[in-house]
């Protein structure tokens, strides 16, 4: 059997303050195959975003093991995780998180800048992805000049531009109306079809229905897993 792109064993995340210790993730064992579209659901505070941050290598787990592409990276330093992030992972956030001072083109270009790709190749790539996302005509605009839906398209373009293996999306439709929300979900589905692994945190059963499989989290534990009938588009 092919090695899953993401696999965890007894993954734990503990937040400590002076007085309390919060177990945000408790003994999480999961496996995500290359090319899967997974959604993670659960009530507020159940640990969805924490899980996404650990899987997305923004946070280091407190315990357990995390295999990415077969390698245990649970003890990787911030620098090594950063290296891995920039080559393998793309993020889409609920609040878009575009940099206000940069234009659409420059925002999308940023991951390639960190990859130190040369200017010519970079421009070509950014242009392609903007066209693919249907926002090429907005390349020179700044985030605050765009609608929410357009901003999220830019964010998705930015997540995709470096051809990551996995896209992590944290409530990608949370700040959008239903029309724009669906647009984004269709985008993600397209990506998935093209072979990209997508891991998405969501509140919305509607959004979750776009994925192949839903992991249900409660109080930091993985309590169930449901398989979805993928929407016909």
């Amino acid at each position: 059997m092919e090695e899953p792109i993401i696999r965890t064993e007894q993954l734990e995340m503990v937040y400590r303050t002076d007085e309390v210790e919060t177990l945000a993730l408790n003994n999480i064992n999961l496996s995500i195959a290359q090319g899967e579209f997974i959604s993670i659901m659960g009530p507020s505070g159940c640990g969805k975003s924490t899980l996404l941050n650990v899987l997305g290598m923004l946070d280091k787990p407190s315990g357990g093991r995390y295999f990415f592409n077969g390698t245990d990276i649970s003890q990787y330093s911030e620098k090594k995780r950063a290296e891995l992030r920039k080559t393998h992972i793309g993020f889409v956030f609920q609040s878009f998180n575009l940099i206000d001072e940069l234009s659409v083109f420059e925002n999308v270009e940023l991951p390639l800048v960190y990859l130190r790709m040369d200017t010519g190749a970079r421009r070509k790539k950014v242009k392609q992805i903007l066209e693919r996302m249907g926002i090429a005509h907005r390349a020179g605009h700044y985030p605050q000049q765009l609608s929410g839906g357009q901003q999220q398209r830019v964010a998705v373009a930015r997540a995709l531009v470096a051809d990551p293996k996995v896209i992590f999306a944290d409530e990608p439709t949370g700040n959008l109306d239903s029309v724009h929300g669906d647009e984004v979900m269709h985008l993600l589905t397209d990506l998935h079809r093209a072979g990209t692994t997508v891991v998405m945190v969501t509140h919305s059963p509607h959004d979750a229905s776009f994925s192949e499989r839903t992991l249900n989290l409660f109080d930091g534990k993985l309590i169930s897993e449901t398989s979805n009938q993928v929407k016909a588009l």
Partner: protein
Amino acid sequence: MLRNYLKISLRHIAKNRTYSLISILGLAVGIACSLFISMYVYNELSYDGFHLKKDRIYRVVEKIDHNGEINAALTSIAVGPTLVEDYPEVENYVRFLSMGGGSAQTVKVGDKIFRESNFWFTDSTLFEVMSFDLLAGDPATALNAPNQVVLSEQLALKFFGRIDSAMGQSIQVGTNTFSVSGVIQDGPRNSDIVYDAFTSLSTIPQQSMQALEQDWFRLTTFTFVLFNQTIEPGSFDARLDDFSERYVKPFIEPISPNSTAVFRLQPLIGLHFDNSREYDLPKGNRAYLSIFILLAIFILSIASINYINMSLSQSIKRAREVGVRKSLGAHAGQVRGQFLGESLIICFLALVGGLVLVEVLLGSFNNITGKNFAFADVFSLRMVITMVSLTLVVGLLSGFYPALVLSRFEASEVLRGSLPKIGKFGNLRRVLMVLQFAFSLLMIIGTLSIYNQMHYLQHKNLGFDKDQMVVINIPQDTAVYNHLASFKEELLKNPNVLGVTGSGQMPGNRVGELMFRIESDGGQMQEKGIKFMAADEDFFRLLDLEIVEGRGFSEDIKSDIQSGFIVNQTAVRQFGWTDDPLGKRMQWGLIDATTASNDGKVVGVVEDFHFASLHNPMEPLAILFRPNFSLLFSVKLKGGDVKGSLAFLEDQWTTFAGAHPFEFQFLDERINSQYQEEQTLLRIFSYFSVLSILIAALGLFALTSFTVEQRLKEFSVRKVLGAKVMDLGQLLGREFLLLLGIALLLAAPLAWYLLADWLQNFSYRIGVPWGSFVLATCITLAITLLTISYHIFQLARANPARTLRME
């Protein structure tokens, strides 16, 4: 990557205009101060460093003890040549004798007359020992014959219009005629040897020269010697003692067996900071140098700290950007690099601002320091290196901490919208704010108090009438001096001239002291040094001085000239004349134990008036009757057409004195010029007050921004719960008022101590002005409230719902 950083930095700076401007302004002020001070320090440290043989040039100084010690920068005239003759290691010498003892000289060029200073009799070896460049003439011959003069470029142009046409022309200084044998570059700004002309020393007549050469106790000459190699000055002491033994002892022993003369060497380099010798040229002050350097470091540090506070307050806004960059694969080092770079950009912008400030304020700076810097001096190699390294150091140092803080933000947290906490060092920030407040208070209190004392000095009743009085200078080599009576008569013909008095001295410059012998109550005579003035009979009437006993001088009583004295009331008191002072015997021009050239009696007592500056207590004064030796004419004008009256005076002057320039001063200005040092101090304090207020206001602004950003949520919640703008203002202001209070507690005693000490310089002074303390506090308080009102206004406008949603 770099381009990306640069782009985002510049856009961030442009977007947050207010904050960027304030940061840049603060740093620009700090950098401008540092540049000024660097220029000053480099200039001071480079004094006389341009002489090629500087390492081998030493100044000889002479300390004599002849009924009292004089530790002089000068020597007797024969020291230089004798040293060269006796010691083979002394290769050469050059001597400088001031012409006219430092006061202005009358110089005649054709039919034009000028008044010039800084003329020196100098040896022909000048150009062998020192490195002054001749623009015309031959250094080997320029000063080797009597009656030659080498003019500075500026004087050559002034006298003859062109450098080449000056050569061979003649000028007359006093009774000597000189032929121009060279034109020398204007004196460099960093030399203690300030000159406008060098005349050949051989011009001094043989007879006078011999008299000077024989007297080892006549301190007349600055003597520089050139050694054949660099030596340790102390290593030559024994030989100098030997020298003194060989030449000075045989000379002085028959006259005064206990008198001694000790010679020492001083290296040319470092001479600028040696203030230990009497009769020296104006020198630098190492203490000032240290104070300036400390001040530069202090101001620059404060500006950097304010900048750090400001960036920290802004860093919260940048948190999300950091999160995004990290999620895209940037590691902490890259984030640090980016923000350090941004800080460097800010600093380079501040450097540009600093340079603008330097250009704008250069005039005032020159005014205070007495230097003559041009804006181009800022771009000397040394200064450019200084400003670039300064900018790099400040940029890196002040960028480091914010960069570190920002790079530590957790992407997972900030992207979820939770605000990072950067509350550490809160107490340090408060301490710094207290220091900034205290410094401002000190400066403002200082400025106000100095101003008060100056006002007091300028408006105190001096006991005489100083208004509408023009004091005309009458040099002895003018025709006016020989026709005083008719000059006076002509002046009095003008109805606008209310009166004229001739005198030797007038209030506003130093009054000399003569050795007198005075009769005490018991009848015996005792010697006393007493301040004196010489005046004609109109002196008392014109200055509105009351003769309280006896009479004034009279032209009709011829004996007054030889034997009439008028003394002031303080003299009567201090001489212990309890019975009638009139008729008390006084002598001056003492010849031996009993006789004197002037021997007479007190004919009148004048009320006390402040003939000296108010630094001094009232002292005994003797006034002599000298109607024919007036060096000054004081003319009392009727108010109104002062310009016309002055034109009349000048007209009359020209009629009598020909081309000799008309030199005059108003008496009140002359008196105020006694307080020049205090005026400079007042200016320095004023500038530093403005500077310290500016810096403290910037610091306050930064700190308030920081507090507001950190407590934004709290303020928003309060607002939602019904807090009014004033409530928020109070909340914000309370802490700063507390800090200001602490600063006042620190600054007030220190200010009191320093002021009380400074006021000791004046015999007539105000008490420590508590009003200044109150006013200074009010000013600082007002600026504090004004500064934080910006943030209160912003808070008032902010929509709390938005802030809370972001949380």
